[in-house]
């Protein structure tokens, strides 16, 4: 248990992930399944989540953020790497021990309709976990736990005898949250908890998650593609690109001083509901689409689309996460980009850009100074 307390920062680390890799084999052939390659969904991720805090994971679809969340809970077996939860190594834990650990780490899914059994009523959905873990001796004490949980998530008591289809989307997501809460977990992994909901309902659920954290001291790993939502609820945000973290920073700092080119582009792409902000800011458009994770680019994964890509190092040397003033960034040139040293070079890229080419690193605009585009 001694490694739980980080000696350097004195932080109480609940989850520590070291060099986690999840590779899915690509198989071909009818009689003999030949493995012809691997989709590197998660390819070397290190992160630590402090107890009682929220870690937000953002990235575009296909960047491996959901796989990372599932691998952390051992729902998808990791290919290599280590995951320690409160000092216990999960990857090598015996199945029955792992099952008892699961009580302490729960998951909330994106689509509440497909993650709830349509033939189970709410009471049975909530009791199942309690029975499996042998919590609450008899029916009455279980009922007591369940009704307390219902109060916490803001559902009425009579919801118990109803079925998922009788609820609206927001209420269904509350049932999903109640199912995770009923076991009294310490860590909750929320995979796109609000993206299936309408705007006005999203806010209700986001506020609920905030409240629960304040009241119960929960630790969250929130996975979402919506940067605004993640920034709103997270203390620390990690940005993923093609299976790896490219930047990790406190959420305010990530917004005011994004260091990685991808983070900058991502930040400038999120629409803000304010015409003044929208008119003032300059967009950094990154061209083209996410490369295939089965055949990721050499060197820095982002160099094929990076507006700041340099002729040296970027294409052949994979950048490690480095500490720069409180953020961790995987970019060889982060300091030079932040100081504006590399900006001039970028302008020349803009001029020589072939018209209508979508796949070359074609840059439209650069921030006048770091972090000033919003």
């Amino acid at each position, binding site marked *: 248990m001694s490694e739980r307390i980080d000696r350097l920062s004195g932080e109480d680390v609940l989850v520590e992930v070291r060099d986690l890799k999840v590779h899915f084999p690509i198989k071909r052939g009818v009689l003999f399944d030949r493995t012809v390659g691997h989709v590197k969904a998660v390819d070397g991720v290190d992160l630590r989540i402090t107890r009682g805090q929220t870690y937000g994971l953002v990235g*575009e679809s296909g960047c491996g953020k959901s796989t990372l969340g599932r691998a952390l809970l051992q729902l998808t077996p990791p290919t290599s790497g280590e995951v320690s939860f409160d000092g216990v190594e999960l990857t090598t834990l015996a199945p029955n021990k792992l099952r008892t650990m699961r009580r302490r780490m729960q998951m909330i899914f994106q689509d509440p309709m497909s993650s709830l059994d349509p033939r189970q009523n709410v009471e049975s959905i909530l009791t199942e976990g309690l029975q499996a873990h042998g919590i609450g001796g008899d029916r009455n004490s279980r009922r007591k736990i369940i009704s307390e949980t219902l109060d916490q998530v803001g559902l009425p008591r009579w919801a118990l005898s109803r079925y998922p289809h009788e609820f609206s989307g927001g209420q269904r997501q509350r049932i999903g949250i109640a199912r995770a809460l009923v076991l009294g977990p310490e860590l909750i992994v929320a995979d796109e908890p609000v993206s299936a909901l309408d705007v006005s309902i999203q806010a209700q659920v986001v506020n609920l998650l905030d409240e629960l954290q304040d009241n119960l001291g929960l630790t969250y790993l929130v996975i979402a593609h919506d940067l605004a939502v993640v*920034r709103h609820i997270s203390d620390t945000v990690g940005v993923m690109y093609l299976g790896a973290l490219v930047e990790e920073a406190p959420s305010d700092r990530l*917004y005011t001083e994004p260091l990685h080119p991808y983070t900058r*582009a991502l930040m400038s*792409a999120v*629409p*803000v*509901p304010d015409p003044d902000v929208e*008119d003032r800011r300059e967009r950094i458009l990154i061209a083209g689409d996410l490369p295939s994770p089965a055949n990721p680019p050499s060197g820095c994964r982002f160099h094929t689309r990076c507006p700041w890509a340099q002729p040296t190092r970027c294409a052949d040397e994979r950048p490690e996460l480095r500490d720069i003033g409180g953020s961790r960034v995987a970019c060889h040139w982060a300091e030079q980009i932040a100081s504006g040293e590399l900006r001039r070079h970028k302008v020349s890229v803009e001029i020589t850009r072939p018209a209508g080419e979508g796949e070359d690193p074609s840059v439209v605009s650069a921030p006048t100074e770091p972090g000033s585009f919003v």
Partner: protein
Amino acid sequence: MALLDVEDLSVTFARRGQRTVRAVDGVSFSVEAGEVVGLVGESGCGKSVTSLAIMGLLPKQPGLQVAGKAVFDGTDLLQLDDRSRRDIRGRDVAMIFQDPLSSLNPVVPIGLQVTEVLTRHRGMKGEAAAKEAAQLLDRVGIPDPRRRLKEYPHQLSGGMRQRALIAMAVACQPRLLIADEPTTALDVTIQAQILELLKDLVRDSGTALVMITHDLGVVAGMCDTINVLYGGRVVETARRRPLFRQPRHPYTVGLLGSVPRLDAGRGERLNPIPGSVRDLLPWPDGCAFAPRCDRRVDACVGEPPDLVLTHDGRSYRCVNPAPLPGLTPGAEARETRPGQATPGSVPAQAVPDDPPAAPGLAAAPSEEETP
């Protein structure tokens, strides 16, 4: 004279043994040439049905009733027969849909789908059509267009598919483009690319654009005029800056309060709208938003709220709007138009499969899910 004038558009779906559903109820808005107009609202508010009705794309089924006018350049699109409507559709008015994969034909190469438009409306054939199609793909930023022409939709990425769809829509340089949630299915960086492309197209060709979306951020960056819809009605119309700076209708206020903003601090609480979109009053009995509204007064219930037109060219449909600083309530009103409603019908959002057994508990699934 506006390019498109939608007046009192109503769409009702009647089914035997059930209450008539009023998906769109008296929607009026106009689009000037070269203007970008936004229709904003949550799922079920009637924004998509409005666009489908204008384009004449609603499935012809018994019980469907479309009333009102949609005057495009002097012709009422709703009165046209199918033949002449097909001439206008694609040539003068074009549409971009939300999900590019389901709106492209999966078994026909991209090239054929683009040249089909050119052949139908511009009479181009063979090599000339192929050349033009390649130019179109090039214009919307698809690299190596000659090769892409031979490819099938599944071979393209989501962003590229949406670009192909836009290429088809702008093939005949339409004067009006209707984009129904064009970026909802896309990632944020791809969304930025597509929005930038749409902006360029509008700026370069003077095409008017009707942007249908649920994302207030998208609207803030693109639209000149914004219509906010709730329960099948336009509840507020305003230019972009006034709407975001001083929203008047409580629903607009609520929407703006519930969106987490990228430039807001951590821990600032959101102010969500209580309840769900399914809690609403049928229009004849009062304002549909009344059950969720924090500015509700007695006058909200009983009869539909009047449309108030203000001196500064805005309008809202609210009895007790959010106050403006320095103005006595009611002083800014220039004209009021009484709300109309057909008795007995219910808004689409309120259609339950079976009546809710307890207050606040609605029945039908998937009504709140973002399209």
